[in-house]
């Protein structure tokens, strides 16, 4: 599989260069090809694990298509809540750090979950522990500190999709 990884990385980098320069001038293209070839040789080992067949599995694609909508909905709800806390004269917040266990096992999945939790205002991942993966999350309005309940309230909206995408 390693034979296709270098060209794939190169093509992604070159496409990014074309988008950033927004011109098809030969000079730009040649410079872009040289730069992206150099970066691809240096860094291709970090990207693109696994086979193409498994990557483009239809179920995975379906989850990847549905994820942005679920994500946007969660984002809108969290924004409304935090804006309410900011504008409320007495600020009825109960902040605290809680432990959120997760069912995800792959590195990409846990990174995606931590990023999604941090991106929604109101929850902020402070630390990650490796043994039976769980996140320490700063939560602006702590309802419960029981691990099962926190998982239900914080991680569940993203976890289903990320498990479908990254396993």
């Amino acid at each position, binding site marked *: 599989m390693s034979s296709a990884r270098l060209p794939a990385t190169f093509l992604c980098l070159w496409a990014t260069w074309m988008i950033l320069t927004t011109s098809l001038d030969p000079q730009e293209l040649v410079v872009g090809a040289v730069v992206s070839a150099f970066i691809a040789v240096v860094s291709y080992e970090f990207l693109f694990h696994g086979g193409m067949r498994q990557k483009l599995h239809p179920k995975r694609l379906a989850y990847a298509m549905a994820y942005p909508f679920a994500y946007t909905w969660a984002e809108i709800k969290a924004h409304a809540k*935090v804006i309410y806390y*900011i504008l409320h004269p007495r600020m009825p917040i109960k*902040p*605290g750090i809680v432990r959120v266990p997760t069912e995800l096992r792959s590195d990409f999945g846990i990174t995606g979950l931590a990023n999604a939790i*941090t*991106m929604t205002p109101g929850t902020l991942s*402070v*630390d990650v522990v490796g043994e039976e993966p769980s996140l320490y999350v700063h939560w602006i309005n702590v309802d419960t500190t029981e691990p099962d309940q926190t998982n239900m309230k914080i991680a569940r909206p993203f976890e289903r999709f990320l498990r479908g995408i990254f396993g």
Partner: protein
Amino acid sequence: MIEIIAYVLLGIGTACAIIGAIGILRFPDVYNRIHANTVVVVGGAIFLVLGAGILGGISAFTVKAVVIALFLFLTSPVSSHAIARAAHKSGIKLWPKSVADKLEEEKR
């Protein structure tokens, strides 16, 4: 038509930016301020960039603006997480009225 959409996006972005800035000023400790910072970046900056990108119609300008929005979207959680982790490791206490600190209990 596209101008109306652009102005709606700009309006949402401006509202989120000013509210988030008020939040950064009002909230009591670092961790809560990072929540307000997320409001400024996600609700404010990304909507402003997208709205300004389509203000003059769809063109190369829009593509670049979308790239900037994507970059903000990808890097913002990483830096928020880094600052929060550094603050907790360097021993900055939570707001005294905080409810729980499981991470501190775990360390002990």
